[in-house]
């Protein structure tokens, strides 16, 4: 009886595999809702945009507002801050991408013009979350006169670009637009 020979697959083998495959797909389909429920829910996604009046922000000062649970910095820069940021050669930057979803062209280099609001270089609007592990950097401090993150020592310049420390990327810029000269809509 027990002769070792290559046994032809039978109808039964086919049924085993087919049943197992259906069970595996069914199992995966049953698990999916339990994984997907942890993603942002409809009410979280609905909080998509915020209007901010920036008319009262004097040159050299800034406000922080909350958008999607995160801080957003809106800073009215001084001419010196703008000059300092412009003077930095590209080669000195750790992250050469502008991290700005509002840019339209193919050129996304992290120049000062690509970081500031388009056509309004005295305004810079950024998500105030350190790209290292998410602390809120402190304004007008650090080695480059921009922002400094106290958590693990990341220094950003006056255009919010990472210059020193463990953070890998420039401070991200949220999608926004000026709805008029004194109002911006974030999101």
């Amino acid at each position: 009886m027990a002769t070792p020979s290559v046994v032809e697959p039978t109808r039964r083998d086919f049924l085993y595999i087919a049943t197992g495959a259906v069970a595996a797909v069914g199992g995966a389909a049953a698990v999916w809702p339990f994984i997907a429920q942890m993603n942002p829910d409809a009410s979280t996604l609905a909080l998509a945009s915020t209007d901010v009046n920036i008319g009262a922000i004097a040159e050299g000062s800034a406000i922080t507002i909350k958008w999607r649970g995160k801080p957003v910095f809106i800073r009215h820069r001084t001419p010196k801050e703008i000059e300092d940021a412009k003077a930095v050669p590209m080669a000195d930057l750790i992250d050469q991408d502008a991290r700005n979803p509002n840019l339209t062209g193919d050129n996304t280099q992290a120049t000062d013009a690509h970081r500031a609001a388009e056509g309004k270089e005295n305004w810079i609007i950024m998500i105030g979350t350190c790209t290292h592990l998410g602390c809120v950097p402190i304004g007008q401090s650090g080695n480059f006169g921009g922002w400094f993150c106290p958590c693990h020592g990341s220094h950003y310049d006056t255009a919010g670009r990472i210059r020193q420390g463990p953070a890998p990327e420039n401070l991200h810029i949220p999608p926004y637009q000026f709805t008029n000269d004194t109002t911006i809509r974030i999101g």
Partner: protein
Amino acid sequence: MSGHSTFDPKNPALKWFEARLPILGLAHSSFVAYPTPKNLNYWWTFGAILSMMLGVQIITGIVLVMHYTPHVDMAFNSVEHIMRDVNYGWLIRYMHANGASMFFIAVYVHIFRGVYYGSYKDPREVLWILGVVIFLLMMATGFMGYVLPWGQMSLWGAIVITNLFSAIPFVGEAVTTWLWGGFAVDNPTLNRFFSLHYLLPFMIAGVVGLHVWALHVSGQNNPTGVEVKSSSDTVPFTPYATVKDAFGMVCFLIFFAWFLFYVPNYLGHADNYIPANPLSTPAHIVPEWYFLPFYAILRAIPDKLGGVIAMFAAIVVLFFLPWLDTSKVRSARYRPLYRQFFWVLLAVCLGLGYIGAMPPEGWYIVIGRLLTAYYFLHFLVILPLLGFIEKPLPLPASITEAVLAKNGAAKPAVGA
């Protein structure tokens, strides 16, 4: 749990029950008749201390949940309500908060005990690995529990730790959004952490069950590292180990009570009595003390992904310890070189803990990097090589011989 039960109830009701569910026999063979090496010292009482602390955390935790509200607008105030209004609420919350620290003190002692006496070696590898799993679950539980009071440290600790996952290439951002249930640490995050903080201790209890099962299959190691050879090497668990464990637990409870009643906030952070504010990070954020060595390793590497990998590797390396240590001799008592490296490792781990609490600047960075390098050097280079280089001291033939050489030789022979 191995071997035959000698449990033989005389009472007919017990006999009837035992024939249907032999659980009393299991308890008897595990905790009464179970043979324990006769030379166990007090470092072996920490297993019982840990079981006690798990019980303390579960009981106080269930009581806290009766008064706590897991919502970002109410969590902080509900904890203050526990502290001020609930009868004995202050006591129960301080027990739980300090209990977590005591639990970690005990687990670190327990782990270093195993490292000193080579308890992770053949045939106890699975026992050791289950222990590392418990340690990981404890870290997850402690981290999520610390988020619940929703103070400044709760929030910013949660932000920094969950952001570790954003270092994963390509999917990092999707993973963190999934963990948060939003675009930042917010109410959905607090709710799921609460749910998991309630669940994980019971999973720990389950793994502790497996850990004890594995222990009772291989038998306990002992300070000589020489396996039990005959029944003269052992004493029954009850009364010997029971009483010794009970004494260890009472001493530990005195230590616990000192923190609880005299310095209940010493191990915490003042900033956690400030309600969470997502717009401002405290100037100096540090995790709970029991995470500090790992936090120091995270910060030692000047690269985001690299730091995260090093931190997890520091724990993962423990899983491989049974195979990284190439020496056949278990106990450091008979390993003159290893014994010295053990103390260096302990000092390095304490040093990492100190660096983890300091701001990341100047010399602290340099020292943090050196200590991190040594930590990995110990496990990946020194340990594997030592097994070949070191000449161990002669081992005693048995536990009994070792015990007699120490205590018996001085006594005059009976009847002389």
